[in-house]
């Protein structure tokens, strides 16, 4: 099928629709691409091509079509470059409860060192050549594993928030994560996610997009639950129905009509899948060449963010991408630096920061064509003091990150550092949460995603605008 569409792009065809019908004809085109069979091929292809060409001509302003198309992107289905001022969002959940005090350590708080005699990371001004923090200001510093994000921080595009998290005090991974994903603490009956409700209460950036949101996950993340046209797509590069190519289209059609009578969500998921499959097949993920010399780590998370970048640049109407980065439940031998206990967490941090830094260089840095905001949260932080296994148990206050050209970054935001002295800790053991993480997300939703319906996205919550974003 990819070959067919490629062949089709070299044809020339007259315009067949005019401006006011753009959305409708684009949608029809997408559906026809899905439906294309041998007998329908020529007709569908003509329409497809005329639309694509017109839109390219519109945006290219006289630049040749070939010059507009990067080689890794052989065909663009919905090639009407978005003029929206609304950002695309990449949402990352660090599952397991990341130890934020290792990622971004409060070296200015002496109790950080007394509470963590073996796993605290040396001050930026410590003597010697051993691993030490890199100062973000005169109080907080990045662990060595986080320094790949220094360029984004230095450019003012990365905001670090600390002593933040959920007002719900659950130290259960699953409750805490669930409440954070649905965006309302302690409401067991709410099943849709905050990002899902954002999408459900905002017009699509492209009304004809077959897929508005995806999880780079093997199941539907709760953050996206409730989103129209959202799917888990663990590997966008492998979006095929399998079996013989000769009958692939016929079998896709068969499955589409077979699932039409199924119950939801199975039916709507299958419909979104058949609509999306052809779109994803048009994008050459394998040959994708990141911009700006960016190199993604060859890890699951690195590959996920690389796929996210390709999807964003393919400009197919994706508005939200969610990814998990797990393995942070470091009860023992957490190894926040390379030289301690094998440096488990150091490696995890390098993977996280390396992928985010590559995404920054590739998609955010120096470009104005794609408005993208990244948010990173975790279900809870970990105890202020280490346990007897050079690890940390479940805690409360934590870090969160926001990154983008319109993020007021280059600083560590707190709503007052609560302090790590025992009398200042929650239950005598945990960094208190002084900044509701929803303040960060809500400001992004309102100012970067252009959705004023904060009462629906974050029910029963009045966010405080804290200057996370900038005009």
């Amino acid at each position: 099928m990819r070959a067919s569409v490629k062949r089709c792009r070299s044809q020339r065809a007259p315009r067949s629709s005019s401006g006011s019908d753009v959305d409708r004809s684009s949608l029809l085109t997408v559906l026809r691409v899905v439906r294309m069979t041998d007998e329908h091929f020529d007709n569908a292809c003509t329409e497809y091509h005329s639309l694509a060409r017109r839109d390219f001509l519109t945006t290219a302003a006289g630049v040749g079509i070939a010059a507009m198309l990067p080689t890794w992107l052989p065909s663009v289905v919905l090639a009407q470059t978005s003029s929206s001022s609304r950002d695309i969002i990449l949402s990352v959940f660090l599952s397991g409860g990341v130890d934020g005090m290792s990622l971004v350590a409060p070296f200015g708080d002496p109790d950080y060192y007394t509470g963590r005699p073996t796993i605290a990371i040396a001050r930026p001004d410590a003597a010697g050549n051993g691993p030490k923090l890199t100062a973000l200001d005169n109080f907080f510093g990045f662990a060595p594993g986080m320094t790949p994000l220094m360029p984004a921080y230095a450019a003012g595009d990365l905001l670090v928030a600390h002593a933040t998290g959920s007002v719900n005090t659950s130290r259960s991974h699953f409750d805490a994560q669930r409440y954070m994903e649905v965006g309302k603490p302690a409401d067991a009956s709410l099943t849709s996610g905050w990002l899902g409700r954002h999408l459900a209460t905002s017009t699509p950036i492209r009304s004809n997009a077959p897929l508005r949101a995806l999880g780079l996950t093997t199941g539907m993340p709760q953050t996206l639950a409730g989103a129209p046209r959202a799917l888990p797509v663990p590997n966008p590069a492998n979006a095929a129905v399998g079996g013989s190519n000769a009958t692939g289209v016929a079998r896709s059609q068969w499955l589409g009509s077979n699932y039409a009578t199924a119950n939801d969500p199975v039916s709507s998921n299958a419909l979104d899948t058949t609509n999306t499959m052809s779109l994803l097949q048009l994008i050459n993920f394998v040959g994708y060449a990141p911009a700006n010399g960016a190199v993604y780590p060859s890890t699951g998370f690195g590959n996920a963010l690389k796929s996210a970048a390709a999807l964003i640049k393919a400009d197919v109407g994706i508005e939200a991408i969610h990814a998990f980065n797990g393995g942070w439940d470091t009860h023992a031998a957490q190894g926040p630096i390379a030289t301690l206990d094998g440096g488990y967490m150091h490696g995890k941090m390098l993977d996280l920061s390396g992928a985010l830094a590559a995404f920054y260089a590739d998609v955010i840095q120096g470009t104005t064509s794609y408005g993208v905001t990244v948010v990173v949260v975790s279900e809870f932080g970990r105890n202020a003091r280490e346990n007897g296994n050079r690890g940390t148990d479940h805690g409360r206050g934590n870090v969160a990150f926001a990154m983008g050209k319109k993020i007021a970054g280059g600083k560590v935001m707190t709503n007052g550092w609560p302090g790590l002295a025992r009398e200042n800790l929650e239950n005598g053991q945990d960094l208190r949460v002084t900044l509701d993480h929803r303040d960060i997300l809500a400001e992004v939703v309102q100012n970067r995603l252009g959705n004023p319906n904060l009462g629906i996205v974050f029910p029963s919550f009045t966010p405080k605008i804290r200057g996370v974003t900038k005009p």
Partner: protein
Amino acid sequence: MRTNLDSDTMEQDAEAVADAIDSTPSRRRFFAMGAGAAAALATTRTVEAQSSKGRTSPFGPTAPAGSKQDASVEWKDPVLRLVRRITMGLTTEEVTIARGLGYAGYLDYHLNPDRIDDSALDTALAARLPVTVMTPAQLAAFGDNNEVANSLSDSALYRAAFSKRQLKERMVEFWTDHFTISLNKVGFIKLVDDRDVIRANAIGNFKTLLKATSKSGAMLVYLDQNRSRTPTPNQNYAREIMELHTLGVDAGYSQTDVAELSRILTGWTTQGPGNFAFDPNMHDRGAKMFLGRAFPAMVATTPAATQMAEGEAAIQMLVDHPNTAKYIALKMARWLLAYTPPQAVVDATAAAYLSSNGDISTMVRTILSATNLMASPAKYKRPFHLAASGLRGMGAQVTNIRSVRQRADQMGQPIFYWEQPNGYPDRIDWWSGLVLGRWSFMADLANRNVAAQTQISTAPFRMPDTADGVVAQIATRMFGGEMPAVLKTQLATYLKAGTYSDARVRETLSLAASATQFQWF
């Protein structure tokens, strides 16, 4: 159960926003369609609660409004329902056994797995995957953890697909999630846990099973209990044994109870190749207060067995707790009956737990009465279950399952690799979005024809060797004779639209196994 944001409210809000932003008819219509689908997802409660409103299929007219129905509506025969529910998928052999025994007799048959002769399968597996019968010491000496992991995963799918003890396999999958241990973290000792803890007790007594997991080296390593020592105990296992294994989250314990239990359990550790051991040097002998019960201080000369016994006493409190009965009853009813089982069934099952002192088969009988099962909606097969039922339904001959199993893992449920201690979700909304992986798995499986690995023979399906003959065989072999008429028509249409050939028959098998009607049990 009520959601804060019901679908109508959400759709109205969404449409109001759409109107405010753009009122052109076409945009508004597209948007409303999207919001409808969103609302459907947002309010997923039970399968039967879903409405039929949604988008139009691009493949032609959708079914008329109101025609969408639960897959179970087509399932008239109680015995067939039971076969679907307590096995990894229908086969003609299984249906014959069930019909011979009747509903109650067939349930009895599977609730006594040790009376079912499965020696042929055990012998075959021992020969093909010799790692799976090694002792802990042999496994430690073996050294190739990768082969251990592959062999364990292979044997899990092989047993799921081909063991005669099918309900046992369904319960092994259940307990494997309930007592999740990530193979990535613990290595070969998970094989020992799977064999000697989970499988040995899958249809036994819950209290015995729970106690066995508390002394399973793999569990103690997975949840860091093996390292927990006074004066700075590790709370990981103490929390999860209450939250996930017994009481349920926040069900009658506090953060202080977590801390106190972690003190009580200090010293529960491992030695050698994952063997349980109690180390009094790691144990906190101070006084503790756990769930309202005082554990008095001990002295250094207190015998080690006595020091360890306070952990056993605390665990006994947990398995005897009425909240454990409720929590296990709810999870088992969800697994065996419905995503939202009736409260009356859960209550009866919790009562069965208490009266039978934790007997698993007594709980299963309570849940799976014919009345309960006939009233329950269909559940959606998770990928592991689907892979096994595809192998069963297509009559696969398997010599080496590895490449099929690795392909099945790509559907999203590599069975021992869920990282967090809560196990793979038993929720339809987690799984239903990933249809593409399921379809391509079946396309791959139906085309397998290598005797040394996995072979699907089309011969049994080509009797008689015509399109209609094949569809009739699919109805019998893959659907127990209860195949909806619409699917028969669709399969026959596909088969007749191309030249009749072995390849076309295989494609039809893959479509039958990919069809929505095959995804439910």
